């Protein structure tokens, strides 16, 4: 059930913008497609919405094959990046458009529009025109217009990109709670990893027209499987290593056991460890100890960021994030500290 993409690809002439891609989205899931521009994320959205046809492959919804179904017959609605509000229509007419083209009666449309406007917090603005609205209000009209017909799936194309930071955070929570309230599948496209982590049930990370990894936000965050994913999620520490075959990995920082339940084949890998998972001082049992010199200390408010240079490998930088503490002593440039890396916090990233 749900939405399924089966080896779906898209090419424009000789240029392939989406390699054959297979993906399942469950009913009621908040699925985010995350990637930089040109990664193919918007192409997937447009293929699902029916705005372009795949070059090959099959798109299914429920039991039906919808590959060739025109956009206006698909039970999906889209929130466009530029909102695409009809400029010559009032807010009420914009929200009610989907009902109007389905030839519902005027009183029925008015009732449903009023109800939906309340849900998205637009009561009182129904007689305005889009040009008289702020960015956040336009956003809400676009949302209301997409949910009013009670679609089976809502597609959102970077809907928060044009909003300022504060409004964006508010809308993230609002979208998430709206999604729970109306219990509808959301397919959300963004290039903002923080947004993806905050809102999604699962994330699809894309790069250069391919899926890099599919997983829950925690999977993706703590256990990136490719170098791209590890790099895309901010400030992961990446350390080159070699798996030796006996369950150990050699790095410039020494040899340590590889995490349980990972591939033990001998090969080159990258070790990824989050800055907040590098611990200073007293280590738990089984952790790998690295002696480092503090290179730099930056106070960023809630956290303090340190840059460490391991004594064994002065070219490698370890970034560490600590909860800030006014009275923490001894963390000054030049101090030598012991950093510990717990095997459970290390992810092995395949080198392509």
């Amino acid at each position, binding site marked *: 059930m749900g939405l399924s993409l089966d080896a779906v690809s898209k090419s424009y002439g000789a240029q392939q913008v989406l390699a054959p891609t297979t993906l399942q989205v469950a009913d009621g899931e908040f699925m985010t497609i995350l990637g930089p521009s040109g990664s193919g994320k918007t192409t997937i959205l447009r293929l699902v*919405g*029916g*705005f372009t046809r795949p070059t090959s492959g099959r798109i299914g919804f429920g039991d039906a094959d919808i590959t060739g179904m*025109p*956009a*206006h*017959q698909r039970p*999906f*609605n*889209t929130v*466009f*990046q*530029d909102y*695409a*509000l*009809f400029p*010559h229509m009032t807010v009420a007419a914009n929200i009610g*458009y*989907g009902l*109007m*083209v*389905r030839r519902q009666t005027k009183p029925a449309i008015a009732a449903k529009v009023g109800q939906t406007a309340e849900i998205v917090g637009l009561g009182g603005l129904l007689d305005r025109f889009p040009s008289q609205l702020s960015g956040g209000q336009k956003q809400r009209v676009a949302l209301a*217009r997409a949910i009013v*017909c009670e679609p089976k799936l809502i597609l959102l194309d970077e809907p928060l990109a044009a909003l300022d930071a504060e409004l964006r955070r508010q809308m993230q929570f609002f979208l998430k709670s709206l999604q729970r309230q109306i219990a509808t599948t959301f397919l959300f496209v963004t290039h903002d990893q923080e947004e993806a982590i905050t809102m999604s049930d699962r994330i699809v990370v894309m790069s250069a027209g391919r899926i890099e990894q599919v997983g829950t936000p925690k999977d993706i965050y703590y256990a990136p499987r490719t170098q791209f994913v590890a790099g895309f999620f901010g400030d992961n520490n990446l350390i080159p290593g070699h798996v030796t075959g006996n369950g150990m990995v050699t790095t410039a920082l020494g040899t340590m056991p590889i995490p349980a339940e990972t591939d033990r084949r001998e090969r080159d890998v990258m070790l990824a460890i989050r800055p907040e998972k590098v611990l200073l001082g007293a280590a738990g049992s089984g952790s790998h100890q690295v002696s480092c010199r503090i290179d730099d200390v930056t106070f960023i408010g809630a956290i303090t960021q340190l840059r460490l240079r391991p004594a064994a490998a002065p070219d490698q930088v370890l970034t560490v994030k600590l909860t800030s503490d006014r009275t923490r002593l001894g963390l000054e440039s030049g101090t030598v500290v012991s950093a510990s890396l717990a095997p459970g916090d290390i992810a092995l990233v395949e080198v392509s």
Partner: protein
Amino acid sequence: MPSRAERITDILLAILAGLVFIVLYAPLLISTLFSIVEVKRGQIQWETATLVWYGRLWENQSILDAIRSTLAVGVISVTLAAVLAVILALYVEWEGAIGRRLIELVVYLPFLLPPIVTGLALLVFFSGLGLDRNLLTVTIGHTIFVLAVLYRLVLTRLQTLPKSLVEASADLGASRWQTLRHVLWPHLRSAIATGAILAFTLSFDETLITVFLAGDQMTLPLRLWAMMRVGFTAEINALVTIVLVISIGLTILVGMRLQSDEVREE
């Protein structure tokens, strides 16, 4: 403060512009003047000033017929051209369109070619088909001639429409017809209206192509032409003045509409 040299330049430019205007518009004013007063032995007879010639026009059946023909040809050909222009513009903007350049060439060519060539080509075409020349052939000729203007305005307007609006309409369940009616038409209608007025002005004045296609029928410019061969009368001047006033009026209307469109887009 502008310097002395700048002020002199400004004054000279103003004089030059004034002269150009006089050269351009004086003959028109003279026509208007002569439709009101009589001239005898190079002297204007102010005491003969009268609007009687304008009244005479309304008693002249052949002129009334010509006016009726001109209006009929104008309205029908502009309507046809407007429908064609919208269809062509929609097709050319459609992503799967083939032969875009050819269509544009075919649309623009009759407008850009010397009218005598367009007129002659149409004449050869119609006589090849064995069609009698009458107001129908004139209407077809005018449709082809004014199509370029309407097409250009409609296409330009269509290109300012964000593609996402059409997609949003389809996304919300609207069929192509519903999208045309509820999204495209409201966006295009003022451009179509402006184009129609401009096209009507062109059709109203069109003489050369009409000469080839009219057969024994008369439009207003042809009637005027015919009357001038007999001699320059105050009646002719009155007719010229009427044609002038209508043409200038419509042109000003188009100018104002185009300007207000620009303001709205900003």
